[in-house]
């Protein structure tokens, strides 16, 4: 005999309704079930029309983010039993346009991600014969934390600044920019700075800190942003005091 829990899932069917509403389903509340298992149970046994994204179901792909009882969560890494006796509410990630049910449009994030050029940039590649770019463990540690990001967008969902101003480039994009800026093999900091040092880059951020709290991978995007602010500000103070420097 397993306990059961009521899951209220946000439904939005654009072809027939103008606004989302909630639909309640009762699913088994097994102690080893995550919320995603509950949703899959609904899809397989109760209502095949429910739409949601998922893939890896092990906290790696970043596609199963949803708002659970008001908090952004990876539904494959959040246990149903933690919400017993329920009911619990599953909604789409906040701050994104809703396409259908709990599926949101991620285009904006995808564009922002590529805008910060999250890949290694070299002024000139060295010839193959010279071998690989080597890195010490200490150099790896400089950026490793930021490389853990799985692009789940929970941080965007938690960020009121992004909610208020969709132009803001946002937490994960800045953390990923820093992941490459701090990589000893990379030389692209200048190019990324063009995007980051705009108002919609780092300066929109008011250090609410929610992004860091909700990040399932402990990336600390808020820290990445503040660190970038500090180094950018130091750079411009130096430019200000020593105009002849650089350029």
């Amino acid at each position: 005999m397993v306990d059961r829990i009521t899951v209220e899932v946000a439904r939005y069917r654009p072809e027939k309704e103008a606004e989302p509403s909630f639909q309640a389903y009762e699913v088994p509340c097994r102690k080893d079930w995550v919320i995603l298992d509950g949703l899959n149970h609904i899809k397989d046994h109760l209502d095949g029309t429910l739409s949601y994204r998922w893939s890896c179901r092990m906290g790696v792909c970043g596609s199963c983010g949803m708002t659970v009882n008001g908090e952004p969560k990876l539904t494959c890494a959040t246990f149903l039993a933690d919400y017993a006796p329920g009911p619990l509410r599953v909604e789409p990630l906040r701050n994104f346009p809703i396409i259908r049910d709990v599926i949101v449009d991620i285009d904006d994030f995808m564009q922002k991600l590529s805008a910060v050029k999250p890949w290694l940039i070299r002024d000139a590649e060295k010839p193959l014969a010279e071998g690989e770019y080597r890195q010490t463990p200490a150099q790896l540690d400089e950026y490793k934390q930021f490389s853990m990001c799985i692009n789940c967008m929970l941080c965007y969902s938690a960020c009121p600044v992004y909610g208020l101003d969709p132009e803001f480039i946002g937490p994960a994009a800045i953390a990923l920019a820093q992941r490459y800026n701090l990589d000893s093999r990379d030389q692209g900091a200048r190019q990324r700075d063009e995007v980051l040092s705009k108002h919609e880059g780092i300066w929109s951020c008011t250090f609410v800190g929610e992004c860091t709290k909700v990040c399932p991978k402990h990336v600390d995007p808020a820290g990445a942003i503040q660190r970038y602010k500090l180094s950018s500000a130091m750079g411009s103070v130096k430019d200000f005091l020593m105009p002849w420097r650089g350029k």
Partner: protein
Amino acid sequence: MMARRSIEPLVWILFSVGGVVAAMFVPVLLFLFGFAYPLGWLASPSHAHLVAVVGHPLVRVLLFFLCTLCLLHAAHRFRYTLYDGLQLQHLQELILLVSYGGAFVGSVAAGVLLWQFG
């Protein structure tokens, strides 16, 4: 480093330094002059002593920085609080004028007071 010369990093650094100064010095000053001395928890220092302290040129300069940095810090934060908390981005000009303008007026007042002190 900067792709485009902008005032934002400078304003931010002033905001941050102001935040540090406010955190370090305001609690103790407020405790002393807001509670301990007026309410008699501690014997208040004599007028002559305080005049000697504030009258010292170095103290005057430091106090001027304290006031200016704290006011700039407050103005900057208050400005963004209005944007975030009340969604008043459309009143930007007015808010800029009131917050940074207020900080400017306050700083000038502090400068004049401390300059003419004694």
